[in-house]
């Protein structure tokens, strides 16, 4: 088998295993007589664990097939004409190495290598991304429209697979302990009340929870493996429905239902944009495939090649109003009449914005961010999964995957959306008191960072942060789950405090996550590799990209300062959370006395995730993860773009970013340390009373507690008008349609009454008269039947005599 087939097989198994698990588990309630069995959970853990092993095998296989060239390549710079100084000439030779080897790795006919064969004499030497793509199955074929299940495997896919399955495995194991309350035939839901005020009793739904988790993983893996945008959309919706099912898992609680609905409807708003994007893509591109696919023996260029050609640049017509489609070799595609195939530039922007609209909904970006904090209604393992590896990661993943189609204007929109989101969410997180809500807002904020990074051409930085964030956020969510479990479902931080001694494992693993997300660790060298907690490297990369972008586009100053300031705020609220929860004296002594450390089944996943949260980005830009990701970077990102018409935006090249990296790192570190120190002073020492500050700025505090009034605003803008329109509709229904219907009904009743009269009087009368006549005739005739035999004989004799007499009288002639 060729490398592509091996990878395809491994990843397909890894993808389908959770589906198999789901199919079996969903019926567990039927084949398990009672609800005390953990079989479904074990099944689910085995499936996702095997998925992880297969993903890891695929990753290793990919690495072996490419001789780990992704790791061998050092930091590479494009030859951006204006700014790049070729100082690192020694890199040229190294960078050429993968060039040849990857051709070797992609000899299979169907594995189209997105291989940009640059002219040798040019000094371009970006690492060639090696991609394996192909078709599983053609679902439908409508003339030129082909709906198919494709796969698209590059290092990003592999990293995502490994990350998702690893985190999901940890979460599954954690959930086995966390959800053990459900192992009963009579689960009492203390937060759901019946109409008489008593608690809801219901059978435990342990198996169902794990079935949904498995389906969730299957959907996410399918989304990552998908090779065309339509397939992405299908799995996108599957992820949506799974999150709906899991957020609304406690379906007896009204709040959970509302939150699930909100998440689903908010996502529909974004998906509407996605659909518009799909329509534009289908109408103008004529294909959904990411990369070149084969149709009736011809190679059809995929979306990425059509937009970006071979060199990663967008090729505009002379008037700048249209974009020329190109194929993978960079030749313009021709219409039948020989003219260039083009797409109006505005429509290309619409396609990009539309698809990004879906990502806004899925990744909870401004202005659709309000569903994510409400999604905390689900069980904590679900929150961990939604917030790290699956749901919200899907949006960022797609933004990264679809990067080639985004024009600089769309990228600018993405950057600003991310910028607004990261600031808004961080400020709300500062005042939130529910431990899970703080984490939820921090997730939104970090997702904003990722979007911002992708928007300012920090493609690797954004996806790097996606992976590192997935680890430390899932860790922190599981820690919060452990705290909530230990505190008997208490989520309010003001009631906690001093938990460090009671729950040392949880507290220390949480501290790892907090340091990681704050980007705080001071890098030191270990075994020749730069070592710092993962968040430091990824946030550093984003801030550096922001700084480079600001230097090149001085008007977009916010895109650097907002994330920088927010890095400080992030450190502040994360340490606030930690100090609030684990340090100080217990604020609720009675609860504190009952707190216990979680069982081992819950702490072991915490330790594993803490290990990854601390070390997954080991080495920073020369580390494994970063290099794997940069290997999948779309062509043209590394070189940057200069003053692209019509918006005259300049995107920084890797060289620009590298030049300011250490400078930006220092800024980011200062911001983070400042945030931490403020948090320490406020919450871990008695020097300043945070309550006093709250009173001083009560207006601001209220504004933040009310989440910038977004919910109020949406309530006033959409929900209330909707209610008014609905009441109109109901009034029209009641007054107009109902009265028409009632009129019809009244006429029908009248007709029925008349019909009844007719039936009763005429039809019944006729029948009864007939019966009466028959009866009276029978009654009068019955007198003849005397029952006397001799009388009958007399009748016969008399009749015979009469007959004779009649015969003689009437026929005398005979």
């Amino acid at each position, binding site marked *: 088998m060729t490398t592509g087939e091996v990878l395809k097989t491994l990843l397909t198994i890894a993808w389908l295993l959770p589906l198999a698990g789901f199919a079996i588990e969903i019926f567990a309630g039927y084949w398990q007589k009672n609800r005390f069995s953990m079989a479904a959970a074990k099944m689910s853990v085995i499936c996702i664990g095997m998925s992880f092993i297969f993903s890891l095998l695929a990753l290793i296989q990919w690495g072996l097939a490419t001789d780990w060239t992704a790791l061998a390549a050092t930091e590479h710079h494009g030859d951006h004409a204006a700014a790049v100084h070729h100082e690192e000439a020694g890199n040229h030779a190294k960078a050429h190495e993968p060039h040849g080897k990857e051709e070797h790795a992609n000899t299979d006919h169907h594995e189209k290598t997105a291989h940009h064969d640059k002219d040798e004499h040019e000094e371009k030497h970006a690492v060639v991304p090696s991609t394996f793509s192909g078709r599983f199955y053609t679902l439908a074929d409508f003339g030129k429209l082909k709906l198919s299940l494709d796969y698209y495997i590059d290092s990003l896919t592999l990293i995502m697979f490994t990350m998702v399955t690893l985190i999901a495995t940890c979460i599954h194991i954690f959930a086995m302990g966390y959800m053990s309350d459900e192992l009963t035939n009579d689960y009492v839901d203390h937060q759901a009340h019946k109409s008489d005020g008593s608690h809801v009793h219901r059978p435990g739904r342990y198996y169902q929870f794990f079935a949904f988790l498995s389906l969730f993983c299957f959907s996410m893996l399918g989304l990552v493996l998908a090779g065309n945008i339509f397939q992405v959309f299908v799995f996108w919706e599957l992820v949506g429905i799974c999150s709906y099912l899991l957020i609304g898992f406690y379906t007896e609680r009204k709040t959970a239902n509302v939150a699930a609905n909100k998440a689903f409807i908010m996502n529909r708003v974004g998906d509407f944009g996605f659909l518009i994007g799909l329509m534009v893509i289908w109408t103008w591109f004529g294909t959904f495939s990411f990369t070149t696919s084969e149709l009736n023996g011809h190679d059809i260029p995929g979306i990425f090649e059509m937009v970006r050609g071979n060199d990663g640049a967008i090729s505009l017509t002379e008037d700048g109003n249209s974009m020329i489609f190109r194929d993978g070799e960079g030749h313009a595609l021709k219409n039948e009449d020989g003219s260039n195939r083009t797409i109006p530039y505005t429509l290309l922007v619409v396609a990009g914005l539309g698809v990004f609209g879906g990502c806004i909904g899925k990744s909870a970006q401004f202005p659709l961010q309000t569903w994510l904090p409400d999604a905390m209604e689900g069980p904590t393992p679900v929150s961990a999964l939604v917030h790290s590896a699956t749901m919200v990661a899907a949006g960022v993943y797609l933004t990264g995957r679809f990067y080639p189609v985004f024009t600089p204007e769309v990228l600018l929109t993405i950057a600003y959306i991310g910028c607004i989101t990261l600031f808004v969410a961080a400020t709300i997180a500062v005042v939130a008191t529910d431990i899970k809500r703080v984490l939820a807002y921090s997730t939104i904020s970090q997702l904003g960072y990722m979007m911002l990074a992708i928007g300012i051409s920090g493609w690797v930085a954004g996806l790097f942060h996606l992976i590192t964030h997935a680890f430390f956020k899932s860790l922190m969510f599981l820690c919060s789950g452990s705290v909530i479990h230990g505190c008997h479902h208490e989520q309010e931080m003001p009631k906690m405090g001093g938990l460090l001694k009671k729950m040392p494992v949880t507290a220390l693993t949480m501290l790892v996550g907090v340091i990681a997300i704050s980007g705080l660790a001071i890098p030191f060298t270990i075994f020749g590799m730069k070592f710092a907690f993962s968040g430091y490297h990824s946030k550093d990369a984003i801030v550096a990209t922001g700084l480079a972008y600001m230097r090149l586009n001085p008007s977009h100053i916010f895109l650097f300062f907002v994330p920088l300031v927010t890095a400080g705020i992030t450190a502040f609220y994360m340490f606030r959370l930690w100090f609030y929860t684990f340090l100080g004296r217990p604020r609720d002594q009675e609860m504190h006395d009952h707190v216990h450390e979680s069982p081992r089944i819950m702490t072991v996943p915490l330790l594993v995730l803490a290990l990854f949260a601390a070390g997954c980005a080991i080495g920073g830009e020369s580390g494994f993860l970063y290099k794997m990701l940069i290997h999948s970077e779309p062509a043209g990102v590394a070189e940057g773009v200069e003053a692209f018409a019509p918006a005259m935006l300049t995107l920084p090249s890797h060289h620009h970013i590298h030049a300011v990296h250490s400078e930006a790192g220092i800024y980011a570190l200062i911001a983070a340390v400042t945030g931490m120190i403020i948090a320490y002073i406020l919450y871990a020492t008695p020097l300043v009373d945070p309550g006093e500050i709250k009173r001083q700025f009560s207006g601001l505090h209220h504004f933040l507690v009310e989440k910038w009034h977004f919910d109020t605003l949406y309530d006033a803008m959409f929900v209330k008008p909707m209610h008014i329109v609905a009441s109109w509709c109901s009034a029209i229904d009641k007054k107009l349609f109902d009265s028409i219907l009632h009129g019809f009904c009244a006429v029908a009743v009248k007709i029925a009454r008349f019909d009844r009269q007719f039936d009763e009087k005429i039809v019944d009368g006729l029948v009864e008269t007939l019966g009466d006549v028959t009866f009276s005739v029978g009654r009068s005739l019955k007198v003849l039947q*005397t029952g006397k035999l*001799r009388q009958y*004989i007399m009748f016969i004799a008399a009749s015979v005599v009469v007959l004779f007499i009649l015969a003689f009288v009437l026929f005398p002639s005979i």
Partner: protein
Amino acid sequence: MEGISLNSFLFVGAILFVSGIVCMATKRNLIGILMGVELVLNGANVNLVAFSRYSSIGIDAKFIALFVIVLAAAEAAVALAIALSFYNNHQTIDVDQADELQG
């Protein structure tokens, strides 16, 4: 035989017939009624045979008479069975007791 006219035969047949009718109409005993029936049938038979001798009907009437004799035998068998059954049910063969079918 030459001196006896058709009317004599018809007269005998009529006497038999009327005797049978009177027997049936007056007897209360079921066996007696059966005997009356036999008389009526035989009166008819006498007429049939006489007509076959003196009219143009010919041999056909003789055969009809033969059938009547056979039918009478069958009828007698059935009627006697009814009589037995009737006796079993009513401990009598008085036909005036058989009035279950009166209206």
